[in-house]
């Protein structure tokens, strides 16, 4: 813009500029359009989130690798040496599941309190509020990518060939994870405004959720036979994170049936022995459901956001 005091009067007429409408309830397409138009703000918030998190720490962004590495180490020690679950190459099995879980947990834990924490901003500046929750999901996605790269290096270093033909499903699975996490984050951040316990509840719930997801143990090897006997297998897979974790394990860990490292005569079922097409079908289904959930989450958020200012 011209800074001189003698600036020419602006001749630009606003006749042709589109009209924006502020009203009680925006329609879902309008909400999504508005959200998309502010993607630059989303990127800005993600990068500021990441920079703030590791500001003034000597190791900086390395912490996003060090702390999962430490968790990985602990679980590996416990399950391979003390509890002896007998799964060969357990570290790869564990790592491929943890990458998914870390993203999910990180995103939900940081996004749930975000609107309450940034009340000052929410009450003063106009932007789609769910961007705050989505920026936390975005930051978690960045850490996820970092960890995924390490996982790939790890797999390559151990000369463990991944299931190449299953690779195709990985992006679909990741998108489902991203959409499902975003949807849950958006809803929880809004609910937390009305019910401040949500934040603590989610922290506890996520711990339970972690053990309901086959990350540190193998579903097929532990509870599958029990559930199968009662016809409850489906129940376990109602947890959307399970399918994503299993898909990642199928790609990176590959083997579905292995010999136990404790006793070579024992054969362990590690992963479901589904065919490629069944994996693809289930992942596409989950993707579609996650998409629907995200739209529902946006609609719920739109309902709840109307009264934010009297609750904050």
């Amino acid at each position, binding site marked *: *813009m011209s*800074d001189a*005091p003698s*600036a*020419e*009067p*602006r*001749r630009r*007429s*606003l*006749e042709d*500029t*589109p*009209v*924006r*409408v*502020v*009203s*009680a*309830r925006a329609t879902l397409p309008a909400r999504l359009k508005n959200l998309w138009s*502010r993607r*630059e*703000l989303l990127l*800005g*918030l993600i990068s*500021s989130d990441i*920079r*703030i998190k590791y*500001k003034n720490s000597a190791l900086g962004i390395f912490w996003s690798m060090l702390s999962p590495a430490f968790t990985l180490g602990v679980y590996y020690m416990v399950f391979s040496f003390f509890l002896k679950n007998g799964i060969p190459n357990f570290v790869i099995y564990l790592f491929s599941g943890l990458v998914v879980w870390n993203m999910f947990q990180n995103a939900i834990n940081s996004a749930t309190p975000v609107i309450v924490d940034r009340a*000052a*901003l929410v*009450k*003063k*500046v*106009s*932007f789609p509020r769910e961007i705050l929750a989505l920026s936390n999901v975005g930051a978690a996605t960045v850490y996820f990518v970092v960890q995924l790269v390490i996982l790939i290096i790890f797999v390559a270093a151990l000369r463990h060939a991944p299931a190449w033909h299953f690779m195709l499903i990985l992006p679909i699975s990741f998108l489902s994870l991203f959409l499902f996490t975003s949807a849950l984050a958006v809803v929880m951040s809004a609910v937390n405004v*009305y*019910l*401040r*316990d949500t934040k603590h*509840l989610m922290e506890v719930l996520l711990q339970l959720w972690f053990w309901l997801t086959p990350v540190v143990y193998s579903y097929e090897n532990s509870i599958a036979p029990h559930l199968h006997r009662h016809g409850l297998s489906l129940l376990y897979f109602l947890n959307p994170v399970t399918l994503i974790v299993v898909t990642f394990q199928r790609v990176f860990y590959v083997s579905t049936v292995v010999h136990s490292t404790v006793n070579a005569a024992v054969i362990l079922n590690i992963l479901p022995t589904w065919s490629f097409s069944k994996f693809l079908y289930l992942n596409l289904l989950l993707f579609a459901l996650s998409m629907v959930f995200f739209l529902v989450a946006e609609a719920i958020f739109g309902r709840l*956001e*109307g*009264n934010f*200012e*009297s*609750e904050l």
Partner: protein
Amino acid sequence: MTTVIDVQGVSKNFKIHHERNQSLKERLLHPRAGTTEVFHALKGVNFSVSQGETVGIIGHNGSGKSTLLKCICGVLKPTTGEISLRGSLAALLELGAGFQTELSGRDNVYLYGAMLGFSKKMVDGIFDDVVAFSEIEQFIDTQVKFYSSGMYVRLAFAVAVNVDPDILVVDEVLAVGDERFQAKCVERIRQFKEEGRTILLVTHNADQVRALCDRAIVLNTGDMIADGPTQESLRIFREHLLEDAVEHDSARLSETIKIDTVTSPTGSFEVRSGSALHLDVNVHAKSAYSGNFVMEIFTRGGLLVSRSDAQGSPVNLTPGHNVIGIDLAQLPLLDGLYDLNVGIVDHHGHTVIAWSEQAATIQVTYDGREAGIVELGATIRQQ
């Protein structure tokens, strides 16, 4: 002219919780504890603003002016009605609310720009202007948490006015920074006005509205009670303040004192510059009252030329007709029309008892060489 802001039947209700029970335990134990009351902050406000207008929104505390502004900016959603906007909008509401204190000034300029809805490329283009305007060049890479409050606000203001908005919304923020920076802000707003941008200024400072706005909207407890030329709206605003005062202190003030007319013994309000002017203010009082007398002289452009009072000697009104004389020994004003406001206030100057806006218009004629408002009688010679 194109309508850039169109406010249609906008109402805003707030729920006021008298007992906040936001923890799960509280909700489970006392599901019905605490009452909520609905507060109507805005009641069906309608108006539209054309491109290039500078509109003031005035009203005292609690009149709903900030709520209206927040609705226009999209921070709040109206309960009913809708607001249509054209073009980009930058709001100077609570400056610096979007700052991340852990980040540097530079990062915050970009982040704040993005929050206002401007792209990184656009902010790149104005970055130097922003830094220059905010006058914090050497601290731009310092974390914002180390800034003084003045620096903080200056940086936020600089971003908001440099991002090239079509509509600028200003909410009582002209009280930021030192006097010199304030003058700079007012200057920038004037420049915006000259460039034909649309400005919405919210304040309870009538002088600011008079100086900057062509049109003013008056809000009173959520209702729009006036929308018109600044002078006219300000008159209604002042009268409403009076009515409110009457309501609050009816025993003492109920219409007891009224300013009837302002007359001149010569019968004329025309005066030559530099000569004397005597005016009589006719006041009717129903009961005795002792207070202070205030007069204001404004230019037609809305600039306050002078405000003065009875200087410690109270005016003692007796029941019936009273005449208060104003003596202007040598009127040093230059050619033009000047509006006179007169009023009676209590001893502390807190409460206006009676007020007459534009009670008289004085026409000053001047045939000297000076131009402007005031005659300084300057002589210029080489030494």
